[in-house]
């Protein structure tokens, strides 16, 4: 196909921007200088002991790391399989893995002398995590959010405002996450000299996908140590939900070279793949270019980006991180899709089985474990990245299930 041929042989100079053929820096010229500056700052920071020790100290004292690896015995009972472990990213400050990245990038922004931060957010989790980091470092913070999401996630909007951020509703295009991302990029193009863009997932132009992955790789490193300590062996499988794919890349990354560890990403099948209303870019998308990177993308016959759908706003994105596209094409990771109904059911199951209300995004991965626990544990323990807690979703689930508005 043309698109694969097009990217078949990236020049050597460009290889560091890519994962296989995916990724790259497909952005307006205005942003090139900012990406060069960011890349340079990050390359220095990642080997600077002072930066790393400040980052680690904040993860420990502010975020609450390391997060526990919890054995889910009742989940094992009902599935008749085990061992199954939950990596408790839901216990991080602000309730999800997202803050690992926002702390790291806010430190970088300070290092680059940028006083203004912008971010995009879907459900509001990344926006809250960004606003939190900006409060901590006394940085100006503007968060772009689709007008529809502003309505649906009023509580997170208020949370961001409490933290001192300005939330700007975006009503162009489909008024959702992809349009909020477009608007954040437009802001960045305009204010690039004073502003750093804290992107919320392993997406966007290089160096973002690699950098965001590295900030989240602490999840996988801890998991590796913890499972070796309690089980004396590596996991047989690691399972995580995938929207843009940051929590999945964070836990996958330290296991990518361990061929015996099965890596499984769970996308949102929405109302069903066959209905066309889903967010399963890796399962049924085609390679395309959105937000600065070549990756699997939901698009129509004319190359227009197709609207994504999922009951969970955090998975509601038509693209996916380019490294996932690479792991998919090389067969190193496999990607499956779980629909809204199965995710909602898993949301209830985990709440009642383990006393943990998971984020709706995470509930997709739980649904897959509920269905496939035997296979997932056949070669060793299964670890699920419990990427976030579900407090933010309680009102939404009540509405979806006809319990009216609780807020």
């Amino acid at each position, binding site marked *: 196909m043309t698109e694969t041929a*097009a990217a078949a042989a990236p020049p050597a100079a460009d290889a560091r921007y890519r994962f296989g053929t995916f990724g790259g820096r497909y952005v307006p010229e205005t942003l090139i200088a900012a990406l060069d500056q960011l890349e340079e700052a990050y390359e220095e920071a990642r080997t600077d002991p002072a930066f790393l020790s400040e980052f680690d100290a904040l993860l420990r004292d502010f975020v609450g790391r390391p997060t526990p690896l919890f054995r889910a015995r009742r989940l094992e009972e009902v599935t008749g399989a085990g061992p199954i472990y939950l990596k408790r990213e839901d216990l991080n400050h602000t309730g999800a893995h997202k803050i690992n990245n926002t702390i790291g990038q806010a430190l970088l922004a300070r290092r680059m002398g940028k006083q203004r931060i912008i971010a995009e957010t879907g459900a509001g989790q990344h926006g809250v995590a960004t606003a939190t980091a900006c409060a901590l470092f006394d940085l100006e913070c503007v968060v772009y959010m689709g007008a529809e999401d502003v309505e649906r996630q009023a509580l997170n909007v208020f949370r961001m405002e409490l933290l001192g951020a300005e939330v700007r509703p975006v009503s162009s295009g489909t008024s959702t996450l992809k349009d909020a991302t477009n608007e954040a990029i437009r802001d960045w193009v305009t204010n690039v000299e004073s502003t750093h863009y804290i992107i919320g997932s392993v997406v966007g132009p290089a160096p973002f996908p690699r950098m965001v992955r590295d900030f989240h790789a602490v999840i996988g490193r801890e998991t590796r140590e913890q499972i070796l300590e309690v089980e004396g062996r590596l996991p047989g499988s690691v399972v995580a939900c995938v929207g843009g794919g940051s929590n999945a890349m964070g836990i996958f990354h330290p296991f990518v070279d361990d061929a015996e560890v099965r890596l499984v990403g769970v996308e949102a099948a929405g109302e069903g793949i066959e209905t066309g209303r889903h967010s399963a870019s890796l399962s049924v998308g085609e390679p395309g270019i959105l937000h600065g990177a070549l990756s699997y993308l939901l698009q129509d016959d004319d190359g227009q980006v197709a609207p994504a759908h999922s009951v969970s706003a955090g998975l509601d994105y038509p693209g996916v991180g380019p490294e996932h596209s690479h792991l998919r094409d090389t067969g190193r990771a496999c990607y499956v899709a779980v629909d809204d109904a199965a995710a909602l059911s898993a949301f209830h199951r985990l709440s009642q089985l383990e006393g943990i209300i998971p984020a709706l995004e995470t509930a997709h991965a739980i649904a897959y474990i509920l269905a496939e626990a035997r296979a997932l544990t056949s070669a060793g323990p299964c670890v699920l990245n419990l990427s976030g807690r579900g407090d933010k979703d309680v009102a939404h689930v009540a509405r979806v299930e006809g319990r009216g508005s609780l807020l």
Partner: protein
Amino acid sequence: MPSSNPNSSPTAPRTLADAFAARRAHGQAALIPYICAGFPTADDSLAVMEAAAEAGADIVELGVPFSDPLADGPTIQRATFKALEAGMTVRGALDILRRFRSRYDTPVVLFTYLNPVHHFGLDRFVREAAEAGAQAILLTDLPAGADAGLEAMVREGGLELIRLLAPTTARTRIPAVMEGAGGFLYYISRTGVTGARTALREELAREVEALREEVALPIAVGFGISTPEQARLVAGVADGVVVGSALVDRLEEGGVEGAGAFLAELRAGMDGKGEGG
């Protein structure tokens, strides 16, 4: 001098170099309107292209709409979304180009984002666009060095690749950007997205002058030019003046006729004939 004349048979297009040379010979700058294919309808966008050629536009930028125009401001976004809603496609834009080329020799630059043409197959798109009568292509999200394979496809397919420079572009990067650049250099007059502005930056003249030391191609300036007076000022320092959002505004207010009248005003402003057109 008039840029083109309608003919009854398919017209051999002029080159971009000819278009600039013809203006330069008269001490004038080229007028380069941006027109979104399919806005407000396919026929109307063709009519605006024709009106532009009649009003003294030297080069037409024909925009192929994309669902996620992240380098564009609200005005061109609005035109883009309306064009897509009205059913415009990549193929539809090529049809408009073909119809324009059957009557006018004004050079055409296709202006778009990568994904629609990548999905179509960039090599195929470039070939079909060249056959339909395009001279060049500008891909907003394909900066120099981003993808040598795609760049090669453009050149091998027979279109010139228009490059952009921004005020933020490092001086050391300019030679790499200009390597393989064709047609003209598009200088972005300010950081930011497209959109009409009331004031131009004072540094613009100095920046364009500095660029001439390193850039052999004609230099066109765009982003934010919205009045005949601004067009006149830019024409005084650059070889070409790109007008996009302001034209969309006039098309929305006054239809094809209003758009044509606006372009005539711009032309007159640039040629120092006052703002009356």
